[in-house]
């Protein structure tokens, strides 16, 4: 099975080509650049180097969010359109799960990936290894760092923190977790599309046309609008064919 993995959900961009034997080629860039400019040229270059053609792909795996709204959408748009165009399967993997996949198999420990979500909030999740595979313990969430630190403290277990934004919240986390806080090597803090592609290998494919990013947050205007609505007036069917 030939899999193309794409993660553009935060500042780093990672692309990988993976086949039945594992990684063929991978590119991970941690330079502040526009994903819309660098993603497609990089995909084309990797296909060239690996001597693959687009129609070879059986599966496109994409980091589906949370993360930067625009970044996530660039990855998801390219992934779903490419999957549709070549008739490949599409698999979405949580951007947090991709990061968690960098965690170590330490028995009895949890893996906690996180991205900063501004104003004291984070996107995060709780993961652990089961039968050698990194799996979610509960669903990903958008939460205040203080509340999440309380929760992690209550686990009374070692916690591996993963992500380049961990440092921004180190004070709070260090305070609550003390020596139960485990930090990974710097090389393990960036999302890797090879990890994403492996996580996607056994996942059920999505319906390409209706697949959308997991933002974990409503747009601000929609949030405010929802607050003024009753359940009956929420409506729907926002798109009309002209």
């Amino acid at each position, binding site marked *: 099975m030939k899999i193309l993995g794409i993660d553009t959900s935060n500042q780093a961009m990672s692309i990988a080509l993976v086949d039945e034997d594992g990684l063929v080629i991978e590119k991970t860039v941690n330079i502040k650049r526009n994903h819309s400019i660098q993603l*497609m040229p990089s995909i084309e270059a990797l296909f060239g180097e690996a001597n693959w053609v687009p129609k070879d792909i059986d599966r496109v795996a994409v980091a589906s969010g949370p993360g930067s*709204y625009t970044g996530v959408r660039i990855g998801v748009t390219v992934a779903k359109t490419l999957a549709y*165009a070549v008739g490949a399967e599409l698999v979405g993997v949580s951007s947090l799960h991709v990061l968690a996949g960098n965690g170590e198999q330490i028995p009895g420990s949890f893996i906690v990936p996180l991205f900063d979500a501004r104003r004291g909030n984070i996107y995060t999740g709780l993961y652990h290894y089961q039968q050698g595979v990194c799996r979610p313990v509960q669903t990903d969430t958008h939460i205040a760092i203080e509340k999440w630190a309380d929760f992690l403290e209550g686990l009374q277990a070692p916690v591996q923190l993963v992500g380049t934004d961990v440092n921004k919240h180190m004070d709070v986390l260090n305070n609550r977790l003390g020596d139960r806080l485990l930090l990974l090597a710097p090389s393990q803090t960036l999302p890797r599309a090879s990890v994403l592609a492996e996580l996607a290998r056994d996942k059920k494919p999505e319906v390409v046309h209706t697949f959308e990013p997991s933002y974990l947050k409503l747009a601000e205007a929609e949030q405010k609008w929802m607050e003024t609505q009753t359940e009956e007036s929420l409506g729907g069917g926002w798109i009309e064919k002209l």
Partner: protein
Amino acid sequence: MSSRKILAIETSCDETSAAVIEEGKVILSNIVASQVKSHQRFGGVVPEIASRHHVEQITLIIEEAMQEAGIAYADLDAVAVTEGPGLVGALLIGVNAAKAIAFAHGLPLIAVNHIKGHIFANRLVSDMQFPLLSLVVSGGHTELIYMSAPDSFEVIGETRDDAAGEAYDKIGRVLGVPYPGGKHIDEMAHKGADTYHFPRAMIREDNYDFSFSGLKSAFINTVHNAKQKGEPIHTDDLAASFQAAVVEVLVDKTIRAAKDRPVKQLVLAGGVAANRGLRSALEKAVAAELPEVKLLIPPLALCGDNAAMIGAAAQVKLAKAEFSDYALNGQPGLSV
């Protein structure tokens, strides 16, 4: 050479659209999914919501366009997409989808300017003859563009503040009509009369530029003062007076610019080209003052944003093999 076909994609604002166009003239399909109902909740387009809807719709709309055209990807000669101007997050969906299609099927990629697209909407219904003068009026633009050839664009006049369509939306909000206000104001204007005599900004000035923010302020002040004094507000007359001021300036400057140049055609383009008041005033003025000039006005279905017009404009670049590479980005402030 067999007739060339382009798959075109447009996502610059709040319509997700894909079309298949033959030789820049024949519409094989033109699918438009409008988000207007969604943005009505907020009284105007919310960029983040627009981007979210585009990513939900994009492959579905492309597939529908291909199916309705009844062709395979192997039959295509290029993929075209709006690169700007527009909302950056919205543009990025179309641009990245177009790149993925181009890469998957080994097709050339053509970047199209949205404004040029509006002008070329006319080629889908009539022959365009050069030199021509085009008045582009929409929610984001009010420009007079002189074209000596299909690939030559000279902006000879433009708005110095609000676009005409933007002014319509703003006063629509004051009158409490649903977004987008233009259509409702147009309907009300036909029931009322120009009794308020709003200013015709810059009409005597020796240039082809426009200004609508003063008119908008005069309108808002009139309504505000009447409310404060408890005087009756004649909404139909207000709409008619506003529309008369907008249309008179647009028509007057357009006719003057056309008289100053050797134009064969006068072309109306953009969302506000759907305005009945503007269409009929321009028809009358051209018949009276420019009998030698042919006036082109797109059918209503091609006035709003659509991908068919992008496919029509892309044909000019296809003929010259002017293609983009995969570093193509959205250009929110792209000029003509």
